[in-house]
């Protein structure tokens, strides 16, 4: 396993990426992001933190191929990412994206079935993913019968069955309470270790980023750029108990030092423009 600090193989790369949204008639175009350079190493856990509206989610959607950059290039496993989502990338969104008309089991099976996988394989992968996410007892339930945290697990399970090599998480715990978030953080760490996938997590919670990641990129207010990249040097085997380590406080302290001024800037125009 490639250690996060050994400068291992590059898994995905953004080079000079910017995103400018054309303004509505009579309005200035919105420069949301960049230019941003980023190299994700295979198998690392990378978090992006930044004030609201700094273009974090835009960065993720560009990497996923859901949006095209205004300029710059994006590559995943050596191949350029164009207008389509490349095979091997899984995305979990901030909003509840579970399908309310399907049971938990059918939600998880959705992607594999659409891809035409044989039913035996679907069944095996789904049962496996549901067991891993602790959802096996809710397989027949509908999402409306579950809590917000459980629904987000359903979405993770749906991504997991496709065995992604790069998992993009867009503030997946933004709507959850603090304790549930700590526990979901443990789940994500477990998931990361077991799948050996590269994980990119977008979050606004500094403690969450500090607890989960190998490296953390701190972004400036709009247009978002990386101001600092912090290495945590946590062991691969870790969980939410590291919040009590002294270096944990140092990391969040350094992040906040970077972000405090930026967050104040973004307060001035919070809610304006695409996030």
């Amino acid at each position, binding site marked *: 396993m490639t250690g996060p600090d050994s400068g291992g193989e590059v898994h995905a790369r953004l080079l000079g990426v910017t995103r400018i949204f054309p303004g509505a008639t009579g309005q200035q175009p919105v420069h949301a992001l960049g230019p941003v350079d980023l190299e994700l190493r295979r198998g690392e856990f990378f978090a992006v933190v930044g004030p609201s509206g700094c273009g974090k989610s835009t960065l993720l959607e560009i990497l996923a191929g859901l949006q095209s950059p205004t300029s710059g290039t994006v590559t995943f496993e050596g191949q350029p990412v164009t207008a389509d989502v490349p*095979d091997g990338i899984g995305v979990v969104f901030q909003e509840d994206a579970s*399908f309310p*008309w399907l049971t938990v089991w059918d939600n998880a099976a959705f992607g594999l079935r659409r891809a035409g996988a044989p039913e035996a394989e679907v069944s095996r992968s789904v049962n496996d993913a549901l067991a891993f996410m602790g959802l096996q007892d809710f397989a027949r339930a509908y999402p409306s019968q579950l809590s917000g945290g459980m629904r987000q697990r359903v979405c993770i399970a749906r991504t997991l069955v496709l065995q992604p090599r790069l998992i993009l998480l867009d503030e997946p715990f933004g709507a959850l309470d603090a304790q549930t978030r700590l526990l979901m953080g443990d789940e994500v760490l477990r998931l990361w270790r077991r799948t050996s996938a590269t994980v990119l997590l977008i979050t606004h919670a500094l403690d969450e980023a500090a607890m989960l990641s190998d490296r953390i990129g701190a972004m400036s207010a709009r247009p978002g750029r990386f101001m600092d990249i912090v290495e945590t040097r946590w062991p691969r085997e870790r969980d939410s108990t590291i919040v009590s380590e002294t270096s944990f406080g140092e990391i969040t302290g350094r992040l906040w030092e970077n972000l405090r001024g930026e967050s104040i800037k973004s307060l001035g125009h919070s809610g304006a423009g695409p996030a």
Partner: protein
Amino acid sequence: MIATQRVTDSLIIVAILLAVWQGLNLMVGDTALPGPAATLAYLAHLVPSARFAENALATLAAFTYALVIAYGLGLAIGVWLGAHHLSGAVGEPLLVALYSIPKITLYPVILLIFGLGISGKVAFGALHGILPVALLTMSAIRNIPPVYLKVARTLHLSKWQTIFAVFFPATLPEVVAGLRIGFTVTLLGVLLAEMFASKRGLGFLIINAMSLAQSEEMLTVAIMLFVFAVLANSLLLWMEHRLHRRN
């Protein structure tokens, strides 16, 4: 507990309605408003008659055609306005305006175009039904959470897979609500058409009975239509609730 109380309460409501009916009957007399018992007796006499069957079938035929047209055109317009943003923005207020005018004023125009036969009734019924079906279908499509489309893309769904596996089930509950309201107003349109200028159908029977001062017949037909509307609506509402409970 709650369930039995609910049944009791519903029975109490029915009893109150029957009592009010009986009370009115005692106040205004049998010729103006027959009582529940007399109406029920007349019902048993009317329903097996050929005259009733003929008129009920005429209404049913006009209603069925009108409903098919209302659903077909309403869904097509709704999908168009929902999927094409500019058309929707331009068209929605126009449809809303059409929806809330007294459409009966347009019936003479329909009669002049389609004539006095079944086609006029069908056109007038469909005119009522198209609008709510189109409006709710449009709103259903607009209300699809954008994140569903992103999920479809990350799961590599084709255009048709996205439509059938994501858009269709996501819009279904609201579309069914539109179909339910469309059902109701189409029925109203057909009956209004029959009441104004027709020689056949249940709407005609009511008006004819009134001019001949046959209160029993008038009331019997009205109550049968009432029961039909309530039953059909309850069925569609039940479907809608099932879809909503899931969502």
